[in-house]
């Protein structure tokens, strides 16, 4: 498989069989031929025994033995293909289901994703898919391995002897019927066990995560008892569920095997009366036992299909039509005009920023600052247009919300506190799949000296969340990513908190010199970098706003001047 193609109507379960036409045909061909020809195994085994009874010469015996082995070889040869294609079917299903779910998750809008629980999504995309496919695979297999095979056995047994077969066979469906009836009952207990098991996992997490809290408050001894009672409950539920699920199979087998009395007695009589050879007797007994074993395993099939049904229900909402972004672009490439008018914004009912207005054009750098929790980050985020806003944000005389998501991403680059590094190389983290030269951005963010000390250079792997790099390196790689496209508007939310002052100054210098076509919005609490900025937006805790250049604010804003002087006077880079 070189690629995985998305499918249409992934929420219809039947489409998964329809989609795999070739593989499903192979399963049908090999499933049918294998299961029908399987009955010749016991039959020829019987014939083999009969050659000895007949006292045949060595040549004949060897000939029959070789024929027996060849027949088994053919059966097993077909069986290999049947097994292989049924597994490939499952393998294909897992891939396409995972792809469809992933595509669906990625194309949810941001507020939908905010409401989703990551752990939940992971379970859907991983273990639910596995359970679901497992059930679909078993179901497909057993149509042949149970349905066809049992029919084939039944027919050949009837050919051997109608009366014996009819009497002996009654108990096989009884065993299967019982297994099918117990299915819901078993499901109830296994579900109770699973729920308890995840409850205990939750409790364990709570007790471990808050261990010191409990210790400080002297609750630890009491919690030990509490934990033990839950463990005992879990134990009892596990025992019930496991016994029902696993220990019942021998019982089904006993029920299905009840007919063996008839088989041996009437079969023996048939041999004595000359109706059967001893080989026929042996073949018949083997077939009957095989059928009984198959019947006793039916319960496993029922349980797995049941489990699959539950998983299918859970993933179905995530199986929608394949989506891709509209990539049509209608934007002016030169000259950028940003006009924000009475912008109000909040995530819920409560507004976090109110009545903000300013304008900006390419080549400008706008500073945004304010005290803790004044909404400066929120202002930056609202300018991305991912969430609905009140008021107006116009870029080149067009309202931000009228641009498509793709257009917005081509107009605005954003960098927040989180460097959002992926566990990949530095180069891939910066280019995100584009084939671009990154030398100039690396220079702009002052990463070159760091790269010299890395033997792999830009191909260094950054690790999960970038753990293999220092905070400053992570921040600068993320900045390089933001700068790579030289988008019309670049929004940087305090990207320098992990970078030392000198590097910070150097980077800002580079931004000013090399990104003259862009409008840069820089959010920070460190006022020293605002000295040479023309436009500063100062947000107050009471949601009022002051605008001006550095010099203007120094003279008209008490707060601004005070903070600036305090920060210039001493190193206040922490807290």
């Amino acid at each position, binding site marked *: 498989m070189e690629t995985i193609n998305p499918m249409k109507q992934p929420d219809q379960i039947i489409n998964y069989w329809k989609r795999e036409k070739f593989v499903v045909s192979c399963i049908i061909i090999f499933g049918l031929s294998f299961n029908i020809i399987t009955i010749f195994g016991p039959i020829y085994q019987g014939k083999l*025994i009969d050659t000895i009874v007949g006292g045949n010469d060595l040549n004949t015996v060897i000939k029959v033995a070789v024929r027996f082995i060849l027949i088994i070889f053919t059966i097993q040869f077909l069986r290999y293909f049947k097994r292989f294609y049924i597994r490939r079917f499952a393998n294909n299903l897992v891939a396409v289901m995972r792809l469809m779910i992933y595509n669906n998750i990625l194309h949810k809008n941001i507020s939908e994703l905010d409401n989703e629980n990551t752990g939940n999504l992971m379970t859907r995309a991983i273990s639910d898919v596995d359970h679901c496919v497992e059930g679909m695979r078993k179901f497909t297999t057993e149509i042949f391995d149970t349905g066809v095979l049992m029919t084939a056995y039944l027919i050949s047994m009837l050919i051997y002897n109608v009366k014996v077969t009819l009497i002996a066979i009654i108990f096989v469906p009884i065993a299967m019927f019982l297994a099918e009836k117990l299915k819901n009952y078993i499901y109830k207990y296994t579900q109770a066990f699973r729920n308890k098991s995840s409850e205990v*996992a939750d409790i364990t997490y709570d007790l471990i995560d808050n261990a010191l809290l409990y210790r400080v408050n002297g609750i630890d001894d009491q919690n030990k008892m509490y934990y033990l009672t839950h463990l005992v409950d879990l134990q009892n539920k596990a025992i019930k569920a496991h016994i029902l699920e696993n220990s019942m199979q021998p019982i089904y087998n006993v029920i299905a095997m009840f007919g063996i*009395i008839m088989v041996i007695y009437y079969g023996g009589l048939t041999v004595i009366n000359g109706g059967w050879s001893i080989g026929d007797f042996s073949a018949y007994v083997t077939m009957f036992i095989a059928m009984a074993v198959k019947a006793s395993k039916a319960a496993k099939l029922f349980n797995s299909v049941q489990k699959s049904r539950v998983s299918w229900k859970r993933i179905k909402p995530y199986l929608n039509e394949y989506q891709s972004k509209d990539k049509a672009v209608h934007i002016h490439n030169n000259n950028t005009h940003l006009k924000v008018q009475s912008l109000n914004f909040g995530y819920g009912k409560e507004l976090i920023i109110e009545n903000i207005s300013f304008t900006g054009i390419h080549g400008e750098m706008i500073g945004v600052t304010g005290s803790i929790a004044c909404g400066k980050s929120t202002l930056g985020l609202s300018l991305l247009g991912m969430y609905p806003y009140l008021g107006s944000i116009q870029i080149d005389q067009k309202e931000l919300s009228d641009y498509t998501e793709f257009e917005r991403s081509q107009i605005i680059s954003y960098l927040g506190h989180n460097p959002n590094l992926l566990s990949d190389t530095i180069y891939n983290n910066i280019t995100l799949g584009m084939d671009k030269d990154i030398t100039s951005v690396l220079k702009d963010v002052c990463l070159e000296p760091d790269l010299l000390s890395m033997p792999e250079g830009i191909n260094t792997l950054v690790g999960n969340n970038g753990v293999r790099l220092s905070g400053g390196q992570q921040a600068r790689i993320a900045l390089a990513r933001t700068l790579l496209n030289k988008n019309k508007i670049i929004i940087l939310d305090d990207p320098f908190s992990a970078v030392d002052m000198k590097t910070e100054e150097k980077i800002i210098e580079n931004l000013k010199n090399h990104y003259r076509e862009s409008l840069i919005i820089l959010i920070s609490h460190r006022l020293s970098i605002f000295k040479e900025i023309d436009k500063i937006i100062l947000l107050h805790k009471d949601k009022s706003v002051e605008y001006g250049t550095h010099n203007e604010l120094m003279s008209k804003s008490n707060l601004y001047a005070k903070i600036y002087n305090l920060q210039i006077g001493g190193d206040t880079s922490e807290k």
Partner: protein
Amino acid sequence: MKNNLVLKSILKVIRKNIMFTSLLLIGIIGVVLTSLIPPQIIKIVIDEHLIPKKYENLLILAIVYFIAVLFIGVFDFFKEALITILGQNVATEIRNGMMEKLTKVNAKFFSNNDSGKVVSRFTNDVNAINTLFTSGIVGMMIDLLKIIGIIVSIWFFSSRLGVLTLIFLPIIYLITRLFQKKMLIAQIKNRIIVGNVNNHIAESIKNAKMIKSYSKEDYMEKNYKEYLIQNFKTIEKVNFYESIFPPIIQLIRAVVIGTIVVLSSNEINYLGISLGMIAATIELISNLFAPIENLGMELQNIQQAISGIQRVNEFYDESEDCKINNELKLIINREDINLDFNNVGFYYNQGHNILNQINLQIIANEKVTFIGRTGVGKSTLFKLILGLIKPTEGLITVNGIDVFSISNKEKRQIFGYVDQSFNIIKGTVADQISLQDPSITREAVIKSLEFVGLSDYINSLENGYDTYIKHDLLFSQGQKQLLAIARATVTNPPILLFDEITANLDSITEDKIISVLQKASMNHTILSISHRLSTIIECDKIVILENGMIKNIGTKEQLIEADEWYRKHIELEKLTWR
């Protein structure tokens, strides 16, 4: 391993359940022995009835055959059930032992270990050990016995056939192992790829905003597809082995049967066995393959569970606080409580002292604030006061009693601790305050929630104080801080510790918290870490820490005079600038 929790737990369960254990042994032996009976009956039927054409007693033999099947079923059922019961008991025992350990383990453990990983030791590792016990060791025992039983049966028919089987046995075993090893290699490779797939999903969800804002959905999907294709390819390999292995085994079985028949033919008659024996041998040989196959899997299970055992035992070996819990019921008059720091020093790793030579006396109702840069050891100092960790040097005492020796139960009567983050525990709103301590009455809970001014909000919830907290969003950041204060003050302890509590709050909530704190500061000795608190509660004493030592102590006025760093700092703080 000196402290083998796993072995201890297994032995304990066996000792406690002697009855079950012996029944299990009976079940195992029963299954092994009864499974040998049916082939013998087939032999008798063929040799003594079908060939001589005698039908007397045929029905009885048929019934005996079924009874044997019945007993196999019954023994098998009991064996499975008993293994489950004992296995689950072992799991409970191990988990209980681990929880016991958790309450004693050195507090350091929690800063070095991620909760998720510790939980996985409690859940996944113990589950693996459970499988080891049930389908590993016990299963292996059964399969070995089955193999021995079959060989002995065959040996009885013909010693030559017995020898022949013994020759076949290792060949079959080696082929089985070869396949199992190949499969394991492919599976291990696949596990790494599955890890990549999972990680990619987690990463995509976590970085969704970034991906969307850069319109990189296609890029992420392309990478995801690559992982899926790799996954597909390795699975395809596993599938090949899985598909071809059982057919090969069946083919070997056919070859063995063919050989036996040829060897027993009249002309060669090497084995010298009757027809009935041949038929029985065919069945016995067929029964031989399953236990051999299982044996390989069981070995593999055991290998895999061993790392689980090691992780559990390692956890059980973590160092403990050697605590002498003085249950001497401290009767402390809150009017003359005093807290003494006597030359206190602390390090996690020798040579890297976090705190050094801390000397300080705090008297009843005094308000003291500790300030200093991040990482200066303020929070460590609080942990020392709470007796969570033991000073590596010196002593902290409450009225002369070493805080480290005070039992956890009594601590809540002396200290109330408000953390910078409020940990929501599993349970209802009331449980958040009482922590389900039965000695804390409902009235006390309600009173303390009234004290922090949350009772109106809580009464507006669906079930009031009994509302079960399902997710984080029920309380705002500020309300969580108030809950934390209620939790700390519910027992009305004389000493309150506030750790950085008003960070990152909007002004309205902050005002509310400030007024609660002011109320709380009456009648309590208060120790706080924060810059801002120094401006909120009237402070008697401000302690400036630098490089793990006390740099300066004094009142606000004194320090504004004497310490330039403090002066600037307090200004920025007033403006709530970070």
